[in-house]
């Protein structure tokens, strides 16, 4: 028992560093993904056919391919044909952002569509523009309803960052791998890795429950 604890304690500084990187990538990616998701989500419900096609094509392509392939494509594939060099960190952020955005587009679209169309009509007849009505009337109501779906996607994205170990990014999973590659104590280390993921995700779940209660999601 003492031995197990010592092994985990020895690995902990490395694991916590990895956990920090996991959180950093997730936070940056999800903030960017929320913007892209919102914009493309609004695209998907506009009258403009071109904007709708852009949105649908993006969602279909990203959802239709595995995340691991996307990660490898961005990190190894793209630099071999166009003249860019991406660090594993930026490639990871791009991959997680783009992937989460595709799912968030659908959440935004469904959330906005769930608001009665009379709300848009009421806003417009007062004299608000489409954009003002969206910002002041539709989105504040829609976003409350979207919170559970957002949290779900955030949790998926946190776990997805473990795939970035494939391009050598020392996030939580790869940090663990590097430890047990040296000490061969896979059980203890992977157990600790799992616990650390659980702590991140469970904290997020608690926060979202608190937020839902505060906003009194109808």
């Amino acid at each position: 028992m003492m031995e197990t604890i010592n092994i985990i304690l020895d690995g902990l500084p490395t694991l916590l560093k990895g956990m920090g990187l996991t959180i950093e990538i997730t936070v940056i990616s999800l903030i960017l993904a929320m913007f892209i998701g919102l914009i493309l989500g609004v695209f998907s419900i506009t009258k403009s056919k071109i904007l709708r096609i852009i949105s649908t094509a993006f969602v279909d392509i990203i959802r239709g391919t595995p995340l691991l392939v996307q990660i490898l494509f961005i990190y190894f594939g793209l630099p071999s044909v166009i003249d860019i060099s991406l660090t594993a960190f930026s490639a990871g952020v791009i991959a997680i952002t783009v992937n989460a955005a595709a799912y968030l587009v659908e959440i935004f679209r469904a959330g906005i569509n769930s608001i009665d169309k009379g709300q848009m009509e009421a806003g417009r007849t007062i004299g608000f523009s489409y954009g003002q009505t969206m910002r002041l009337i539709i989105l504040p109501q829609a976003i409350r309803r979207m919170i559970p779906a957002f949290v779900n996607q955030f949790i998926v994205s946190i776990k997805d960052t473990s795939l970035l170990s494939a391009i050598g990014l020392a996030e939580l999973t790869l940090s663990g791998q590097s430890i047990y590659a040296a000490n061969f104590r896979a059980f203890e280390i992977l157990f600790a890795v799992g616990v650390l993921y659980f702590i991140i995700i469970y904290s997020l779940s608690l926060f979202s429950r608190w937020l839902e209660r505060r906003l009194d999601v109808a």
Partner: protein
Amino acid sequence: MKMIEVNNLKKSFGKLEVLKDINMDVNSQEVVCVIGPSGSGKSTLLRCINLLEEPTGGEIFIEGDNLTAPNTNINELRQKLGMVFQQFNLFPHKTVMENITMGPKRLKGKSQSEVKELGTQLLDKVGLADKADVYPDKLSGGQKQRVAMARALAMEPHIMLFDEPTSALDPEMVGEVLQVMKDLAEEGMTMTIVTHEMGFAKEVADRVIFMDEGFIVEQGTPDELFNNPQNERTKAFLSKVL
């Protein structure tokens, strides 16, 4: 001056032609009630007048401004047209006061104290002065509709449009809503009302328009239309509803 002028208005949804060559106008301070069977196009006509529905053909003028011209600033023009919906469409995430004041505050650049005063006045007028800080879901249907009227009036419109304002209400709440509309009519507001309340139309309207199958079949004073209808379809409709 004509407040509303509709010329050769047509509206189709796909292959379904809902409005077929509508011509009408509404004069200043006139109260016009539009009646007719379900599916006759009366709500669609009203919704075309503030461009909630895009006309398929024809022209609409609001105080002489061409609503259907491509360079018209529709957001500005809509401020002259207050609209009251069957389903109230209050903003559920805003208090009653905020529902009323957000338009004048954001669109007319009025200060918080100005809009608060305006909101209080309007709530007083519709008899809901004590409800300023509650959310719409705490109100009865009749109260919601009165707030919706106050919200529309807050933009100081020149014309008020009502789309079956009492159709979603329990019978005992119809009276309170009609009373506010009657007060408005007496103050000289120009009003166009799509309604099934024949008693109200008789009492308050200056002119009643009967629509059927996308046409204006007949129009006249309430006395002419209700007591001496000329057209067979008008007679048939009135015999069912009166």
